[in-house]
């Protein structure tokens, strides 16, 4: 067990954890507010990556400079993911909320949405893996450290940290953040205080989708290929991370993601990469059995 291999696994795990964190944020925010596992969240992440790929290819053929391509395609991907998140909420979840349907119905509807979006992309695009251009160049100043942490990984880590900071500011210090916190605590009371709940929920979906899209583009750049199925496993793993940290809690989601990313990376490095996914799912089952409220979550007692 040499030191280099250890650091390699450590940073690999951190990168992985960052991506999980970007997706897990959407899960945890939506869960915190509407108590719904948004199954189709992974699909939003996939749609973000696909939109980024399509727009960037079109722009490349138009012959734009690389910086313009990166910025424009990333922006479009984020906008489209937000639009999909918003529309999804309006179609699949809002009518159920209006009719006070049981939670089981919302979950089934979410599974349906996930299946729909996956096959929508499959039919409209392709079932093959598509190569994704690497937008992140190798930085020269980073050359001496590149054997531990490659430049794309560095960019992923930094972006994640920036997104986290922005999100914390949004939730802690803005008016809409206050409304979100109020809604998650008590919906009826929030309405009485003049919070437009439907708007808050829409915005939550939009913000969650935006972070997922960022994650989608980053991972696509890093791995170099995408396909219609990428959202499913990533989504489930991000959900594991969100539960691990305590679902509904934003710092929890980030912490849980890093813990999951690191353990997965070490497991794959030292034991077997074949059973990596098995390990993640086993992890989920064990957490839910022994500590369903997660690392940072509070155990709630249900009152009658």
């Amino acid at each position, binding site marked *: 067990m040499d030191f280099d291999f250890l650091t390699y696994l450590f940073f690999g795990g951190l990168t992985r954890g960052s991506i999980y964190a970007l997706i897990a944020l959407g899960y945890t925010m939506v869960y915190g507010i509407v108590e719904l596992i948004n199954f189709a969240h992974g699909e939003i992440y996939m749609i973000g990556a696909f939109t980024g790929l399509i727009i960037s290819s079109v722009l490349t053929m138009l012959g734009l400079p690389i910086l313009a391509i990166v910025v424009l395609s990333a922006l479009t991907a984020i906008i489209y993911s937000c639009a999909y998140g918003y529309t999804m909420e309006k179609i699949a979840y809002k009518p159920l909320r209006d009719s006070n349907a049981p939670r089981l119905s919302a979950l089934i509807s979410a599974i349906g949405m996930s299946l729909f979006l996956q096959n929508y992309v499959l039919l409209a695009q392709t079932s093959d893996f598509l190569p994704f251009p690497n937008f992140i160049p190798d930085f020269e100043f980073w050359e001496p450290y590149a054997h531990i942490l490659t430049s794309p990984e560095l960019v992923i880590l930094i972006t994640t940290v920036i997104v986290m900071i922005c999100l914390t500011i949004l939730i802690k210090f803005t008016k809409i953040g206050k409304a979100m916190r109020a809604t998650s605590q008590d919906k009826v009371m929030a309405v009485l205080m003049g919070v437009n709940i439907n708007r808050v929920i829409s915005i939550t979906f939009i913000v969650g989708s935006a972070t997922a899209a960022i994650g989608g583009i980053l991972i696509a750049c890093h791995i170099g290929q995408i396909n219609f199925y990428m959202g499913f496993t990533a989504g489930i793993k991000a959900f594991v991370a969100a539960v691990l940290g305590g679902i509904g809690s934003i710092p929890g989601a980030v912490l849980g993601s890093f813990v999951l990313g690191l353990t997965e990376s070490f497991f794959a490095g030292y034991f077997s990469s074949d059973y990596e996914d098995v390990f993640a799912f086993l992890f*989920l089952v064990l957490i839910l059995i022994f500590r369903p409220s997660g690392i940072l979550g509070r155990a709630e007692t249900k009152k009658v």
Partner: protein
Amino acid sequence: MTIKNQIKKSFLVSLWFMFLTFPILVIQVNTVENVIKWRWLNMIGVGIGSFFLSILWRYMLEKRPEKGKQTKKYQLFFLNNILHEKKIFFPVIILLSLFVLCFPYIFSMYQTNIMISALIYVMMGLGLNIVIGLAGLLDLGYVAFFAVGAYSYALLNYHYGLIFWIALPLGGILALIFGVILGYPVLRLRGDYLAIVTLGFGEIIRLVLENWNDFSFGPSGISNIPKPCFLGIDLSLQGTTKYLFYIIVGMVALTIFVTNRLQNSRIGRAWIALKDDEIACQAMGINKGKTKLRAFGLGAMWAGMGGVIFAAKTTFINPASFTIWESVIILCTVVLGGMGSITGVVLGALLLILLPEYLRAFSEFRMIIFGAVLVLMMVFRPGGIIKNVRRIYKFDPILEKNSVKNEVNS
């Protein structure tokens, strides 16, 4: 809303959807040859389609019955009325069973084969119906038990040469044991967590089957699984198909019988009560954990037996047949038919499996339609096609008063 407003709103919706589907539906990039295909026709289709669909959507949303104020028309569906009338019920059942018995002689072997797969789904749907429809536990890893059944037949046959008829109950029991082992720790969890854990479990089983080459022969699967033989006689290909058809018909009949009896038994009522209110149930002295575990285990058992029949039918299994989407399809049949309603689930499974078989032209749209069905059913008709009619104790105050009076008078 006036017509003008309606049109305006729908127009905006169609513009929105044209914007939304623009990159994915219209542009197709071929990154190898660097060519872009623009498919503007799709955009026009989306625009027109979403214009009319949004009008329909709003109309349906308005017509949706409000909760609590259930209208009679929605509650009692035509078919349910028929089924509760004994004079119609028995002849229908006799006719139906006659038709089913003659089926392999009337139709070709191809049709019989399709029917066998559809009936396997009916059986699985009915099994899942115990778990979801009666006990209200969302199980997304149902296919794992199906895999347990299929692999137990395949492996037991491969190593020890066990025949179908011994493997059938064994597969069921093995799946039941798996169900209980998994269910015991996770059933304390709340509904949506349970869904995720079962999903995780389903994936674990599939991944293990895919990677553990020494045990399950990995992704290449197991082939040459024998079809069931009749009293030790090997039948011709046509004969086995017919035979298998009768086996699955018998199993479906058994499943219907068992679920029907379960539904009205003490434990069935405990399941239904648990679905509605856990705390009240515990106050009434129902052991929550045990009751849920029974539902979970029984559901798993049907899946296991379904798996054995599936392995015998296809004679080849590999882990690719047991993905999470298979669970979702079974879930879809239950949801479409009506959670908790036996006729509904049978009808739902037959519709969902047979329609795509006969509408081959649309077969690639199968999964996307399943997804849409799940969402639309939940939004507009959460009870399914045939809503489960709950037995209600009807209290008639006038009658009651009269009888009290009579008693006093006498």
